[in-house]
């Protein structure tokens, strides 16, 4: 049975919400109650929304059924391995969901008097503290709403720091293998973007980078572990070179899961790094969001962070700084006035994600987080080494991979592509890996199992992956039409883009 749209199921008369019968739910603007404030009612009548809005209603049973049935057309971590490279689709603990729903967190307003939200502020401070400790940094901007928002935050800090010195640098260097958000962010912040080339083994070319550094380069944006799944061995040397040239180092924290508890980016000279709480710290992906992207900052960049902001004070304690307290705080702790670049969003950030991330950190503890990184890397290498006899692993010889394994479509037969293999995996019961990224590899396939997969699960996946790979190498025509067993066959994306239908409208009679 196909599930209709709510617009096809519902109508304007049905509702799944009841209101008190005696109360003013049938009032209309301008004639609500007899009142001393007649003027208001008279004036409001002009705003009355008279025409139909076109919002269908469903009763509760119909609503539950509609969304339950829709949900079953989705693949999800709860159903199986979700090997999307660089997205870190790990298990979302249910305790985190329970904690986020405690009334003291879920049912408090962001502008309540501070005395009534001490616990909420403690959560922010406590999480900020551990993020700083885990990364070896100085401060953290908690408010960015997602990874890309965090990138923007970091780049704006860099720009603000240069501007504070009157140094109008124009260029941000980005490796060719970077996430698309990196160049987009730099451009959004008004920078020109230039590529840094990679070496044959899949890492940043240190010499080429050094050669490009100069007084016009504001900074570099590096992903480490990088998007080829490799650790940037020269990271410290890169940072030193950038710093020597007066620039700053931004690190894309998307891949922090591989090193959490093992390596502190601050020790490698990083000045700013966003942390995707939904990747490393297991807040749910939710079909595409909400994310949360706190940005840890070095001492050099800390004075420029956005408000509200959390930083370590001289006595080592982490404190939340808001507009009102910023001046006093920064005089005491930044040896001068705070030079915040401003506000990135209303309110304090993704509180609902903070509670979950803090719960995750406390659940794992020091030993658990280290084990997370180790198991994530172990699982990825297990897949790499279980596949490389059959499938091209372009950097397989560059050493162990970190938390994800990169493959290419070299050797596929019959004109089959990475896309065909991906769709073939759907018929095996799996969500495909990240495909065609990073761009440096032809027909790239980036496989990230995460640490929350069991060996049994990996072995099953490898068997399916090998099976489909064999078909792809043999040029099995059937793959071109895959998937066969999904809720939908291949969808026509060209038609969707050429004649966009972005909202439902009543069919013509």
């Amino acid at each position, binding site marked *: 049975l196909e599930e209709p749209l709510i617009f096809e199921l519902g109508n304007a008369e049905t509702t799944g919400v009841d209101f008190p019968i005696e109360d003013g739910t049938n009032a209309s603007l301008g004639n*609500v109650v007899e009142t001393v404030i007649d003027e208001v009612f008279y004036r409001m009548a002009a705003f009355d929304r008279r025409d139909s809005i076109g919002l269908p209603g469903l009763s509760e049973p119909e609503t539950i059924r509609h969304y339950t049935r829709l949900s079953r057309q989705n693949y999800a971590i709860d159903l199986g391995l979700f090997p999307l490279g660089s997205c870190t689709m790990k298990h979302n603990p249910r305790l985190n969901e329970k*904690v986020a729903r405690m009334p003291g967190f879920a049912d408090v307003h962001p502008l309540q008097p501070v005395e009534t939200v001490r616990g909420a502020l403690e959560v922010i401070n406590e999480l900020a503290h551990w993020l700083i*400790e885990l990364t070896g940094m100085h401060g953290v901007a908690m408010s960015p709403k997602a990874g*890309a928002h965090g990138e923007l935050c970091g780049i704006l800090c860099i720009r603000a720091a240069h501007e504070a010195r009157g140094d109008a640098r124009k260029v941000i260097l980005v490796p060719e293998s970077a996430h698309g958000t990196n160049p987009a962010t730099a451009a959004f912040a008004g920078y020109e973007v230039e590529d840094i080339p990679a070496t044959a083994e899949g890492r940043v070319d240190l010499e080429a980078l050094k050669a490009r550094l100069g007084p016009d380069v504001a900074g570099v944006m590096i992903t480490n572990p990088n998007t080829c799944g490799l650790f940037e061995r020269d990271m410290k040397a890169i940072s030193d070179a950038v710093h020597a040239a007066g620039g700053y180092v931004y690190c894309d924290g998307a891949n922090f899961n591989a090193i959490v*508890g093992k390596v502190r980016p601050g020790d490698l000279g990083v000045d700013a790094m966003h942390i995707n709480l939904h990747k490393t710290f297991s807040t749910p992906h939710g079909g595409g969001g909400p994310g949360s992207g706190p940005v840890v900052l070095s001492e050099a960049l800390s004075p420029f962070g956005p408000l509200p902001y959390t930083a370590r004070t001289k006595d080592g304690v982490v404190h939340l700084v808001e507009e009102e307290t910023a001046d006093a705080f920064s005089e005491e702790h930044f040896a001068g006035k705070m030079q915040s670049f401003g506000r990135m969003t209303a309110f304090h950030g993704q509180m609902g994600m903070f509670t979950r991330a803090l719960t995750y950190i406390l659940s794992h503890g020091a030993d658990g987080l280290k084990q997370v990184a180790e198991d994530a890397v172990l699982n990825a290498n297990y897949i790499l080494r279980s596949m490389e006899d059959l499938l091209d692993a372009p950097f397989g010889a560059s050493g162990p991979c970190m938390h994800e394994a990169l493959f290419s479509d070299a050797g596929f037969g019959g004109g089959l592509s990475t896309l065909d293999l991906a769709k073939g995996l759907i018929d095996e019961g799996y969500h495909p890996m990240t495909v065609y990224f990073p761009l440096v590899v032809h027909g790239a396939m980036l496989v990230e199992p995460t640490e929350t997969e069991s060996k049994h699960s990996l072995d099953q996946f490898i068997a399916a992956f090998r099976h489909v790979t064999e078909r792809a190498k043999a040029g099995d025509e059937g793959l071109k039409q895959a998937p066969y067993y999904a809720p939908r066959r291949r969808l026509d994306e060209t038609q969707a883009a050429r004649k966009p239908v972005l909202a439902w409208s009543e069919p013509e009679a």
Partner: protein
Amino acid sequence: MRYLPLTDTDRGEMLAKIGVSSIDDLFVDVPEEARLTGPIEGLPLHASEMAVEKHMRRLSKKNLAAADAPFFLGAGAYRHHIPASVDHIIQRGEFLTAYTPYQPEIAQGTLQMLFEFQTQVARLYGCAVANASMYDGSTACWEAVAMAHRVTKRKRVVLSGALHPHYAEVVRTMAKFTDDEIADARPSMQPDPDLEGLIGRIDDATSCVVVQYPDILGRLSDLSQIAEAAHAKGALLVVVNTEPVALGMVKSPGEQGADIVVGEGQSIGVGLQFGGPYLGLFAVRDPKHVRQMPGRLCGETVDAEGKRGFVLTLSTREQHIRREKATSNICTNSGLCALAFSVHMTLLGEKGLRQLASWNHSLACTAAERLVKVPGVELLNATFFNEFTIRVGRDARELVRLLADKGILAGVSLGRLYPDSEGLDDALLVAVTETTSHEDIEVLAVALKEALA
């Protein structure tokens, strides 16, 4: 550890298969000096679920939950009753633990929901097309300004003085880096918004005018006047709404000529959550502007067998394809919040939304009537939906703290929102929703009377 399935036996077998002798061999590329040798300072070892829950519950109990007090806060975040079924749906693992629907064949659940959501938002806003959601209202507001820049190729932005100050700050902050010029003012403390002043600031260099509706003080503006003035100068009208429930009762921005309508969707389905995650709504009135929109869009298409299906589309606007030429660097939406919104809106339907709006307005009128009877309280607004401004003749920040000590969450003082502006100190924003009882209103009135005596 409960979240880590590998046993030591597994680990041993896997290392053997990989051909190394220890986990450390997999970290050989990390230079010696970069390795953290000890544990994270101060972080205890892993803890039982019970212990962590206890810790977090202790922190939770240090907060005064809205349900436990007469509650009148608004100013961009509203407390509404959320049906229990909304939370049931968003906890379905298939929604909760799915990713961005990049593989549409196995993501039709998320995609169809987004298509329905887009349609609901577009209709609510009186627009043609809405996107699949953004971070929150304040960032959506900035994205609207940036889009107006792209559409008009102009850089001068006129902000209404009665735009939520946090939203205005976000726009100002971001504009610093994109070279947009921002013209704004502080709110006029009059019964009606200062339309003439606003219109007077629109010129031929203006990319857009940004107006909040209802505005930060709860007042409504006749948007069609502003639209006309803006369009006459070739500028776009951006309307910001922070209380979508209002649109169940008052005319939509789209039908009054707004070009871009953005807002905060938190009221419907999402909850207060101390400010986040919230739900940015973004819509355009004219379909021709679609290709300049930021954010994800879900569109209808057919599959290889001709069945209707949905995909993310027009992604050539987006960062993962266009990189530095994208319309935005955004690569996340507020998917789960969009789902909550859509489920709640589906439960309400047009009938329920209108009833909800009526009830909110009716209770707010009752509250306003009651409060103006308190000696020393004056109502500022000539118009309001479910939130209004009163002047209390004393510092409202202090008053709010005083009432908080008595267990009453009385509203948002303008002093909290505008710490640097003078002359606003005695103003208090009071929001009333269906969760407010008549008894709550009475408690507030009595406490105000005492405090102002």
